[in-house]
């Protein structure tokens, strides 16, 4: 190639590592909040708590069925304008990604609870378990096992979604790529490196995920008669 690489410096590597840190951090924070919030929405909908269940359903349907980028703009530009409050790019990113993750987690929670044979729950009731104990001892362990593969692919997907926060100015891996690309004009070096970074992160999540899947699905993997 006719270009030289003088545009690159050691600080670019530092920048990349910092960006990686930001991406991973936002991914972790929004995934954890999203999981908790999603479980809450899922349970509210599973137990059909009136009004709240319907409101949360409509809300999460719109979160699932609109672009995350638009949701980010709504939170980052829209909410401060309407309510006259300050929201940092980081806060907007966490709020949006958590909400988006939660709306998908809720679906996984509901479907993996509903996949459990209801007769077992009757059996547990007949042994004087409380509903809370049934949730804890009977439903949760099995739902977790059913949900795990879905949660892992959701996590891999949500990692990619984090890249959108670069658009509202969070200096994540993608934003770092953009910065370096603008300066060096070396898209064929910069973007493959950024892409590969995401790829490796995705593989890390997949590996951790398959370990978790194995751990929670031992009972389904046994040799059946």
């Amino acid at each position, binding site marked *: 190639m006719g270009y030289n690489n003088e545009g690159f410096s050691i600080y670019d590597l530092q920048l990349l590592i910092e960006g990686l840190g930001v991406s991973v951090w936002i991914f972790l924070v929004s995934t954890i909040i999203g999981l908790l919030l999603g479980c809450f929405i899922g349970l509210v909908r599973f137990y059909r708590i009136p009004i709240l269940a319907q409101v949360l359903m409509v809300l999460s349907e719109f979160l699932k069925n609109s672009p995350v980028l638009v949701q980010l703009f709504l939170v980052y530009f829209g909410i401060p304008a309407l309510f006259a409050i300050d929201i940092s790019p980081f806060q907007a990113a966490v709020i949006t990604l958590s909400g988006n993750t939660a709306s998908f987690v809720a679906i996984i929670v509901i479907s993996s609870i509903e996949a459990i044979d209801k007769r077992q729950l*009757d059996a547990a009731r*007949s*042994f004087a378990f409380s509903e809370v104990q049934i949730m804890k001892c009977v439903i949760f362990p099995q739902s977790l096992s059913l949900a795990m593969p879905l949660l892992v692919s959701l996590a891999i997907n949500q990692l990619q979604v984090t890249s959108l926060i670069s658009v509202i100015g969070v200096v994540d891996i993608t934003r770092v790529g953009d910065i370096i690309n603008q300066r060096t004009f070396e898209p064929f070096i910069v973007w493959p490196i950024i892409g590969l970074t995401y790829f490796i992160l995705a593989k890390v999540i997949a590996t951790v995920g398959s370990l978790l899947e194995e751990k929670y699905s031992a*009972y*389904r993997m*046994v040799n059946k008669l």
Partner: protein
Amino acid sequence: MIKIKALHKNFGNLEVLRGVNISINHGEVVSILGGSGSGKSTLIRCINGLEKVTSGSITVDEYDVADKKQLLNVRKKCSTVFQQFDLYPHLSVLDNITLAPINVLGEKKIEANKVGLKLLESVGILEKANNYPAQLSGGEKQRAGICRALAMKPDYLLLDEVTSSLDPEMTAEVLGILKNLSGKGITMIFVTHEIEFAREISNRIVFLDEGVILKDLSKEHFFSAEGGCLEPRIKKFLSKMDKNNG
């Protein structure tokens, strides 16, 4: 004592139980016979509160099944064995048995395990203690189901068609175990198709037909020459069962 008074149960417009009155004393072994749709399984599910009664009352000793708080006490006294076993698939056989004793009765894990293993030994599947339900045959699952019920040290054992999902060989296994239990002072209420077994094990036979009790007699009386089995509908039922078994 289990006391059932004027029990009605509707599913929508369908009247499944239409005024059942019965009391069952301590130590009795009662077989509830009846064709499919006679309401016999529903009766059991009303006793342990899995179905809400439409009207009438059920009390188990001093506890009222209709009262939410007392229902838990009822359920501690009555253990159920289910037709489809309904073991918890994610737990080993031993954990299936000890889950309720530990979480509901507050037993220590070591103690509960000891009792569980003893029960498994008594039904001949000790070696399956650490297997998952999916690895057991139907007969073994039902034996585990019986252990799970007995681990609660119930005063009453409710048995809902416990052999209907089993082939004849496994049926014999399970019935053998239940027969051993019958002499030990535990009150047992069978819902069953197995006439021969009812004749062998129970001391009282209740015949349910279209949601009402047609006959409620001692076993001897029921099967005697002038007994309940002369009632045309019961006669028909019995001959049909004989054909099925033959």
